[in-house]
């Protein structure tokens, strides 16, 4: 609000409590996790202090390397699909009258709040043999008998698109709703069809928002740990799944920590990229 700087201890006080909490319960855990990633795994207990690069070494193996590549691949693919659909969707949404927008927004928020568990469960049901969509199609005469469409790559991809969609809408919504409605109108008056208007005016003007959304959803998708287990087979297990698996079921916390640190650095790099993009947008305006 102001360009004022805080003077004295009293002024700094409101900030110390949240900063303290965040440092204690976020920075410190990460520091410990970083340290643990160098520790030695102990069977039956959690870990013992050591310094070995074994954990990072294991990580470079073909097995986990493949898991990493698969994670990146499906995350970027899903992000691309989701943004390609959510961007025009949000555009149409923001052109509606406020009163019409509200029920749709409530629905989107409700879907957003659903956890991965419920989404995983819902999709595995929808694509299952006994209880799924294929039954409806049999009933309609489009299929001879019900089919299980899960687990599969397609099922996982659909699930992840579903997961990321509401998130994307909410990221893009502010910029989209602030778009001067007269810009697309001017384009139409000059002879551009609505289709052309969308691609030559709306998308370029909101370019930074679009890029930011792709990156945010990409990072978001990297975090999917349940859907790959429920809708996919072991080859489809992403890095996040392996981290959970190693930490909880293989009791190899140091290794899990190493993978987590790597994933974190990767994510931070991309998030940093979004912030840089956002900052660079401030200049030309």
């Amino acid at each position, binding site marked *: 609000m102001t360009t004022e700087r805080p003077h004295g201890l009293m002024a700094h006080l409101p900030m110390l*409590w949240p900063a303290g909490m965040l440092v204690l319960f976020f920075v410190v855990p990460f520091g410990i996790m970083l340290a643990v990633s160098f520790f030695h795994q102990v069977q039956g207990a959690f870990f013992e202090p050591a310094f070995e690069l074994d954990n990072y070494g294991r990580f470079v193996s073909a097995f986990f390397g493949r898991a990493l590549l698969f994670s990146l691949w499906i995350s970027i693919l899903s992000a691309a699909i989701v943004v390609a659909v959510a961007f025009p969707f949000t555009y149409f949404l923001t*052109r509606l009258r406020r009163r019409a927008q509200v029920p*749709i927004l409530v629905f989107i928020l409700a879907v957003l709040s659903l956890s991965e568990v419920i989404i995983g469960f819902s999709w595995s049901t929808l694509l299952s043999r006994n209880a799924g*969509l294929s039954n409806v199609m049999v009933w309609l005469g489009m299929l001879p008998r019900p089919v299980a469409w899960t687990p599969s790559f397609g099922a996982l991809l659909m699930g992840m698109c579903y997961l990321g969609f509401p998130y994307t809408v909410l990221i893009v919504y502010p910029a989209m709703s602030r778009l001067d409605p007269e810009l697309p109108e001017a384009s139409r008056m000059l002879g551009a069809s609505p289709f052309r208007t969308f691609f030559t005016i709306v998308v370029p003007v909101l370019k930074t928002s679009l890029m930011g959304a792709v990156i945010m959803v990409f990072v978001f998708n990297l975090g999917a*740990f349940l859907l790959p287990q429920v809708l996919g087979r072991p080859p489809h297990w992403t890095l996040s799944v392996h981290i959970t698996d190693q930490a*909880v079921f293989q009791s190899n916390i140091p290794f899990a920590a190493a993978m987590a640190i790597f994933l974190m650095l990767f994510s931070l790099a991309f998030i940093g990229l979004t912030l840089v993009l956002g900052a660079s947008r401030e200049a030309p305006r």
Partner: protein
Amino acid sequence: MSRLGSKLFMGLVLLFLAGPLIVVAGVSLNGAQQLLFPPRDPSLRWYAELFNQPDWLNAMGNSLLIAFTSAALAVLIAFPLAWFLWRYRVRYGSVLYGLGVAPFTLPPVITALGFLVFWVSVGLYGSIVATIVSHAIFFVTLPLVTITLGLNSIDRQVVEAATTMGADERKVFTTIILPLIRPYLISGYAFAFVLSLNEYIVAYMVSGFTVETLPIKIFNSLRYGYTPVMAVVAVVFMLFAALVFGLIARFGDLPKLLGAWSKD
């Protein structure tokens, strides 16, 4: 022409979003203990079961308690931070904001593992306090973003006017700022609350074996056999979220809370 096309497109997308939920709702009404759709012998017995079986009720109690307290704690942390960054200009401002946003933006597995490691080291692994604090930090981002949005939407001239009329810093805060951002405080809390209810991985990693929340119970049930109560929980969560956000929409300006300009 294009009006129809855009409506059709939106309709298809919304159908896609609603699809799994419709199936789950159908499954929850199935009479037998089977995963069937369309439901046979539709009945509400599983809904009754949710509210009768002690282990499900226990899980619900845990979830509600954690959501209640962690959301409040999240707002208590986010509010002073957002206010401080709005009120003053500090060089480390973006670092602080980044710190507040990081827990939620990073893949949850990472944050969950970090908490696991921390609570193990501190000796509080498995306690409900650990879950509450973890959730609070994890969800700090939500009220932080909404409250920041709210503060930024305050017209500076309104504050200046109050100052010229004799209001000191504290008066301005209680009479101008607080009322204006109250809807954002509430929506930030509601957001964190609803997401905490639904949250799985952090709760699981931190105290999953001792403190069973509803999502944890669902996932455990997924592995050990199916019971329609899982579907019931999904439906109840969905309706609850719709209710909370519907209420916010009813009493507030939802588009504005999500970042649109106010209605002119």
